[in-house]
C-alpha cells in the first residue's frame, strides 16, 4: 500500500473511528467530545492536503478493494483534480464547524452523539467526493442525508423540527432517487460499477442519454437547492443548530455541484450536454434573482442568509451552464469562495444571536459600537457576498460573468449582472439592520465564547487573502478542465 492509499483511507477512516468512539462513550465523553472531533477533522484535512504532491506529479491516487465481487461492486476511492477542491473545502468546513461547536453547542450528555454525527456528516461528504464506485458514491450520498437529518431532528430549534427534518429528508431523497436511476442506467449500460470505465467514454442511444443527463441535473439540483427545488432549504437551515447549518450551507450544497461536474459533464460529450446549457443558465438566473428577492423580504437573520445560498447556487448553476472554461472554472471557484463567505456569515450570525439572544433584524440595531469585531467580520462577509473586491467572491463572479459573455446568450449574462445588484441590497440591509441605526429597547450583549470568535476571524482573514492572492486556488481548479467535457475548450 503506498502512502497515498493510506492517506485516502485516513481521510475517511479517522473520522469514522472517532465517531464510533464518541457514540460508544456516550455521556462520559462530554469533556473530550469536542477535542476528539476536532483532532480527527484536522487529521482528515491534513490527509486531504497530503494528496497534493501526488496530484502535482500527475498521478491519480486510487485505492481499490473488492466488496461484492458477484455484482462487480468494489470499494474504490480516488482523488483527481476534480475531486480536490471539493474535498478540501468540505474537510475545512467540517473543521471550522466543529471548532465553532466548541463555543456554540451546549455540552450535555448527548454531546458525544452530536459530535459523532457531525463527523459522520463530514465523512458522508468526503466519501461522496472520493468514491470511485457507484454504489459507494450512493452510500456516502445517503450518509450525508441521514446524518444531517438526525442532527436536525435531535438538536434542531423549535417544536417544528420533526416535520422540518422529515420534509428535508423526503425532499432531498427525491433528488437522490433520480440520481440513483441515472446511476443504475449507467451501470446497466457499461456493465461495470467504477467511474474509470465511465471516464473512458460511453455511448448510449440519444433518448437514453438525454434522460440520464436530465435525471442527473434535476437530482443534483435538488441538493444544490436551486429554484424551484430549493423548498427544503430555508426551513432546514433555519431550524438546524448553527454548526450543522454551516456545514449544510457551505459544504453540502456544493456536493450537488460536484455531482453535476462528475456525472453529466465528465461522462458525456459536449454535444450531448449542449442542449441542456440554456436551461441550466436560465435556471441559474431565476434562482439567483428569486433567492435575492426572498432574502430581501425576510427578517430572520438565518433565513436571510439561507435564501442567499439559493441565490449563490444560482450563480454556480449559471456558470456551469455556460460550458465555457471561464464559466466552469468560475463556478468551481465560487464553490470554494462561497463556502468561506457563507460559513463566515453564519458564524457571524451565530455570534450575534448568542450574544444578544435575538434573531430578527427588526429587534436589533446599532450594535457596531458594542460588538466592533463582530461588525467588522460580519461586514466583510456581507461585502464579500455582494461581490466587492478585494474579497474572494469578486474573483469567482468575474469569471462566471465572463464565461456568460462568451456564450451566445449575452442577455442572460446582463440579467445576471443586474441580479447581483440585489445581492448588494440585501447584504446592506442585513448589515445596517444589525449593526447600525438605533438600538432597540432591552438589548443586552454577552461576551461570546472564544471558539465563536476565532473561526469567524480566521474566515474573515481568509476571505481577504483569497481575494488578493487567489493564484494557488485558481491553479488547482484549472487542472480540472481536462477532465470535463472531454477537455476541449
Amino acid at each position, binding site marked *: 500500500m503506498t502512502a497515498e492509499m493510506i492517506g485516502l483511507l485516513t481521510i475517511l477512516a479517522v473520522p469514522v473511528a472517532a465517531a464510533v468512539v464518541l457514540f460508544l462513550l456516550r455521556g462520559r465523553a462530554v469533556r473530550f467530545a469536542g477535542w476528539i472531533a476536532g483532532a480527527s477533522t484536522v487529521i482528515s484535512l491534513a490527509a486531504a492536503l497530503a494528496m497534493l504532491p501526488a496530484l502535482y506529479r500527475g498521478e491519480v491516487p486510487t485505492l481499490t478493494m473488492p466488496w*461484492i*465481487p*458477484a*455484482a462487480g461492486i468494489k470499494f474504490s476511492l480516488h482523488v483527481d483534480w476534480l475531486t480536490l477542491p471539493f474535498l478540501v473545502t468540505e474537510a475545512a468546513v467540517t473543521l471550522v464547524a466543529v471548532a465553532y461547536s466548541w463555543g456554540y453547542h451546549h455540552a450535555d450528555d448527548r454531546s458525544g452523539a452530536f459530535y459523532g454525527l457531525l463527523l459522520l456528516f463530514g465523512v458522508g461528504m468526503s466519501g461522496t467526493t472520493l468514491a470511485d464506485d457507484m*454504489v459507494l458514491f*450512493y*452510500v456516502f450520498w*445517503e*450518509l450525508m442525508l*441521514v446524518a444531517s437529518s438526525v442532527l436536525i*431532528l*435531535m438538536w434542531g430549534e423549535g*417544536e417544528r423540527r*420533526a416535520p422540518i*427534518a*422529515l420534509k428535508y*429528508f*423526503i425532499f432531498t*431523497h*427525491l433528488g437522490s*432517487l433520480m440520481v*440513483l*436511476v441515472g446511476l*443504475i*442506467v449507467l*451501470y*446497466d449500460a457499461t456493465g461495470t460499477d467504477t467511474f474509470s470505465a465511465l471516464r473512458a467514454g460511453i455511448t448510449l442511444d440519444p433518448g437514453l442519454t438525454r434522460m440520464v443527463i436530465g435525471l442527473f441535473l434535476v437530482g443534483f439540483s435538488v441538493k444544490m437547492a436551486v429554484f424551484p427545488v430549493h423548498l427544503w432549504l430555508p426551513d432546514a437551515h433555519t431550524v438546524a443548530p448553527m454548526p450543522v447549518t454551516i456545514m449544510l450551507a457551505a459544504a453540502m450544497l456544493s456536493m450537488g455541484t460536484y455531482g453535476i461536474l462528475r456525472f453529466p459533464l465528465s461522462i458525456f460529450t459536449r454535444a450531448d450536454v449542449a442542449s441542456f446549457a440554456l436551461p441550466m443558465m436560465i435556471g441559474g438566473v431565476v434562482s439567483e434573482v428569486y433567492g435575492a428577492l426572498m432574502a430581501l423580504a425576510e427578517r430572520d437573520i438565518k433565513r436571510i442568509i439561507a435564501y442567499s445560498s439559493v441565490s449563490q447556487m444560482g450563480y454556480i448553476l449559471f456558470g456551469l451552464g455556460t460550458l465555457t472554461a471561464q464559466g466552469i472554472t468560475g463556478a468551481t471557484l465560487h464553490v470554494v469562495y462561497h463556502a468561506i463567505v457563507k460559513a463566515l456569515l453564519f458564524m457571524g450570525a451565530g455570534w450575534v444571536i448568542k450574544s444578544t439572544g435575538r434573531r430578527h433584524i427588526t429587534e436589533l440595531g446599532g450594535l457596531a459600537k458594542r460588538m466592533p469585531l463582530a461588525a467588522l467580520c460580519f461586514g466583510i462577509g456581507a461585502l464579500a457576498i455582494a461581490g466587492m473586491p478585494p474579497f474572494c467572491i469578486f474573483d469567482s463572479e468575474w469569471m462566471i460573468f465572463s464565461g456568460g459573455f462568451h456564450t451566445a446568450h449575452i442577455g442572460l449574462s446582463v440579467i445576471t449582472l443586474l441580479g447581483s445588484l440585489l445581492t448588494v441590497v440585501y447584504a446592506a440591509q442585513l448589515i445596517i439592520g444589525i449593526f447600525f441605526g438605533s438600538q432597540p429597547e432591552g438589548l443586552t450583549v454577552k461576551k461570546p465564547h472564544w471558539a465563536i470568535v476565532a473561526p469567524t476571524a480566521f474566515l474573515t482573514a481568509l476571505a481577504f487573502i483569497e481575494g488578493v492572492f487567489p493564484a494557488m486556488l485558481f491553479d488547482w481548479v484549472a487542472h480540472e478542465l481536462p477532465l470535463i467535457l472531454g477537455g476541449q475548450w
Partner: protein
Amino acid sequence: MVGGNVWVIVPILCLGVGAFVVYLVARLLTKENGWLASLTAGIFVAALVAFVPLAVVTRRALDTGGPLPMWGGEESGSVVLRSDPGAVVIVGVALMLGVLTSTYSGRYLALDRRNDLYYPLLLLMVTGLCGTVLAADLFNLYLFIELMSIAAYVLVAFRRHSRRAIEAGFKYLVMGSVGTLLFLVGVALIYRERGTIALPPISSAPADPTGLWTRAGLAFFLVGLGVKSALVPLHTWLPDAHGRAPSSISAMLSGIIIQSAFYALLKVSLGTGMSARALGGVLIAVSVANMTLGNAVALVQTDTKRLLGYSTVAQTGYMMFGIGMGLYYGIPEAIQAGFFLLVAHAAMKGLAFLSKGVHRFYLDTSTLEELRGTASQLPLVAVTFTVALGGLAGVPPLAGFISKWFILGQVLQPGEPLAYVGLAIFLLNTFLALGYYLPLVARLFIVPDSTAGRAKERVAISAWMAVPLVATAALVIAIGLYPGPWWAWVEGIGPYLLGR
C-alpha cells in the same frame, strides 16, 4: 417402496416429532415458559443442523447436473418430497427465524397463558412450511400447506380474550380455507386433464398447457395460493391477522410464511406447465398493485403492527416485481435479486415485529402515538427498530438498499419501455414508503418539548429478548455490508425456475 435421500425428510421429521415432544413435556413435566422456549429453540437448532446436509446435497446436484434429492417412491408418481434451490433457501430462513422467535418467546409469552399449545403449534407451522416447499406432488403440498395454515390460524387467534384477535384469526381461517378450496379445485382440474398430480422438477415440466382444464386449473391455483401469499386484492386478511397475532408469530408470518406460500405458487404454476413468460406477466401486474396499495394504505395507519402488515404487502410486491421481471424476460439474476430481498426482508421484518413486541410487553403500547419518545425507556429496542425500519425503507448501507439495488440493476437489462415504467413505479413506491417509515423512526426519539423535563426511566429488557434482537440487527447490517455470501446462496433459484 419408500426410499431416496433421507436428508430431505429429516427437517420435517425433526420438527414434527419435536412438536409432540414439546407438547408432552408441557403437559407432563413443566409449563415453565423458559424451559419450553429453550426446548423449542433447541429443536429448531437441531433441525437447522440437520438441514445443512440437505442444502449441500441439493447444491451438489445442481452443480453436477444430477437429479435433485428426493424422498418417497422411486417411480415418478409416488415421489413425496423433492428438494430444490428455492426450497433450501426458504427452509433455511424459516428455521433461522424459528430459532430467533422461540428464544424471544422465552420471555414474551410470560404475559400469556396456554404456552403448552403455543410452542407445539409454532413447530407444526414450520413443519408445514417445510413440507409445502419440499412437496413433490399436489396432494402432499395440500396436506402440508393446510398443516401450516391451521397452525397459523390458531396462533393468530392465540390471545383468546381479545375479541379482535378472534376476529382476525377467524377472517384468516375463512379466507385461507377458501384459498385452499380453490387450490383443491385446481388440483381436480389438473388431474382430470393429466391423470397425475405429480409435480415434476421444473426443467421436466410439460410445455405450454393447451388444455382448457389445465388452464382453468392454473387460474384456480393462482387465486387459491394467491390468497395465502397476500396478492392484492386477496390480501385483506393480512393486516388484521398480522396486527392481532402475538408479535413473535407476526414475525414468522410476515417473515416467511407468506413467502413460502408464494414459492408454492411459483412451483405449482411452473411445474404444471405454465410458461415463465405468462406467469411473469401476471406477477408484474400484481406486484404493481401490491406495492402501490400496500404503501398507500400503510400511510394512513395508526396501529403499528397493522402498518408493518401493510409494509409486508408492499415488500412482497417488490419481490414479485423482481421475480416477475426475471420470469417474463428470462433473466435468472432478476429472480435471484427477488429472492435476495426475500431473505433480507425476513430478517428486517422479523426484527421490526420483535422490536415492536418488546414495546408492547414492557410499555403496553400498540398505536404509533404511544411509541412517541420511548427511546429513552428502551434505547436498545429503539436502535434495533430503527435498523429494521431503515433497512425496509432502503437506506444504505443496510440490507434493504442493496436488495433494491440488485433488483433495479437486473430489471433494466432488457432495456424495454416496460422495464422503465416498472422502474419508475418501483422507485415512486420506495419514495412513498418513506412517508410512513421515517415518521415512525422519528417518533421513537422525539420527546415533545412540553414533557422534556420529566425524563422517563430506562426499562431493562430480558436477555431472552435482547439477544435475538441484537443478533437479527447484526444480520441486517451484515447482509447490507457483505451481501456476497447471501447473494451466492440464492443463486440457483433463477435457473431452476426458468427450467434450465
